[in-house]
């Protein structure tokens, strides 16, 4: 079975205006819309296209998160994933822990490709894919904007500060994806019904036998310094004068 494993993280929807809790212990997540991390959705879309091109037999989605992350896994199944595993964990799992979970599941599932978002839009860590590749001792292609598979290898292009960089990696490998790679499909209603019948297994993080290294201790969460509202100018002449005065043009 040629299997692609895809990581799915449940995060605050990207359209939500995130607010810091008054007690500075975190951000407000009660009653806030939750979604699949947008970069993970792109990873899943790419995995589905790989399967549709006949280069894979199964797309397995995995989430490390609370029971409610089943919602995001069901959405992933409705998009077209074949099977889901929820590694249940009520706290917030640090990237190293998530990487160890995936490393453990790789032994069970033997994927030839593990696809993840380049970062989650909540913690913005951007670590899990690279850590997993290190633990697995396999190649990584990070923040891919283009990916082709052939002859047991992948050719991956990413945006770097100097332009575009392309590497060829041997499979199996870990690939993380960037925004440009594709546009994820919309889920149709019949697919949501079908997804209810697809297998979704739950395993407790504690039962996996994974070493859990404590994450960092949160000291404080604060809102960023606010921008001040500026001035309204009445015409182009006034705008140009203002910009010239600040030495901006």
């Amino acid at each position, binding site marked *: 079975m040629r299997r692609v494993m895809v990581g799915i993280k449940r995060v605050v929807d990207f359209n939500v205006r995130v607010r810091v809790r008054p007690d500075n212990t975190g951000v407000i997540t009660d009653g806030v819309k939750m979604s699949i991390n947008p970069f993970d959705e792109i990873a899943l879309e790419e995995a589905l296209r790989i399967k549709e091109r006949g280069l894979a037999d199964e797309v397995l989605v995995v989430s490390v998160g609370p029971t409610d992350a089943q919602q995001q896994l069901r959405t992933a199944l409705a998009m077209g994933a074949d099977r889901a595993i929820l590694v249940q964990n009520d706290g917030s799992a640090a990237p190293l822990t998530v990487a160890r979970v995936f490393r453990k599941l790789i032994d069970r599932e033997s994927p030839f490709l593990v696809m993840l978002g380049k970062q989650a839009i909540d913690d*913005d860590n951007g670590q*899990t894919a690279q850590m997993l590749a290190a633990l697995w001792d396999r190649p990584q292609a990070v923040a891919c904007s283009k990916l082709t598979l052939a002859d047991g290898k992948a050719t991956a292009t990413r945006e770097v500060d100097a332009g575009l960089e392309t*590497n060829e990696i041997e499979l199996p490998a870990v690939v993380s994806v960037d925004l440009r790679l594709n546009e994820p499909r919309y889920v149709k209603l019949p697919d949501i019904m079908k997804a209810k019948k697809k297998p979704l297994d739950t395993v407790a993080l504690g039962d996996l036998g994974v070493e859990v290294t404590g994450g960092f201790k949160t000291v404080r969460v604060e809102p*960023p310094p606010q921008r001040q509202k500026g001035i309204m100018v009445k015409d182009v002449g006034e705008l140009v004068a203002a910009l010239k005065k600040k030495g901006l043009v």
Partner: protein
Amino acid sequence: MSTVLVVAEHLGGKLNPSTAKCVTCAATVSGAAIDVVVFAADGAAVAQEAAALSGVRTVLRVDNPANAEPIAAVLAPQIAKLAANYTHIFGPSTTFGKDLMPRVAGLLGVNQVSDVMAVEGPHRFKRPIYAGNAILTIDAPADAKVVATVRVASFEAAAAGGSASVEPVALDVPLPGHTLFIDRSAAKPGRPDLQSARRVVSGGRALGSGENFKIIYSLADRLGAAVGASRAAVDAGYVPNDMQVGQTGKIIAPELYVAIGISGAIQHMTGIKDARTIVAINKDSEAPIFEIADFGLVGDLFTIVPELEKQLGA
């Protein structure tokens, strides 16, 4: 006492300015000794540049044909080996460091501190989360190594004037051959790169079509600016999605940002709030973008933008 190893970023025999910024960040770890490591096929010129940075104690030069290109899977085990002598390992939060440093952290069995904005103690750091909508202060464990990427926009470059010694280092580490560098193409010629440009002009849905975006390009060229777009303009198909500025696109911090026909959805504002000066041009005086703009101008963009270009040329 803290000892910080800074991993140098370089290209074409030149040190990237991100390295000097990492050195500045490292110097805020109180009393730290700072070494810089240069991985290259021939790192002579880059090592000399690094040795001239103020505050650097020693530059380690690891020459190896395998280090000709910055392949994370090749560099990470070498850094992990060197890490034995250090309490902190810093790299820049650029595409180079974002690729490499978490792999180092994985090999060392620690979590990484991503995007350090400020050092508050040897193990206490500030970093942005939720695309900068919240600032997190964390304590990393005092008994473990600190692997961190440094948010380069938060630190000035270390001054020249140092005279560190350069030491060649041979590392006996097995290196993988599973990753092959193919090529690196320069950014599109002519217009500056959106991510690093000092000036950016962006268009929104109010442009109405891809064809109409030509007035945005024209103004950008007058300003020597990069061109961006709102998600709405990308979703409408006016421009490709690599031009998207916002939380799920590019998060940018130019000196001048000009938002044209962009109402200011949350996800867009998140991507521009570190810009030094924001100019907004919109026909709707109630548009949220005006709440964060330094200069706002209400009116028809199809009249204002050509006029602005004309007056800037005068």
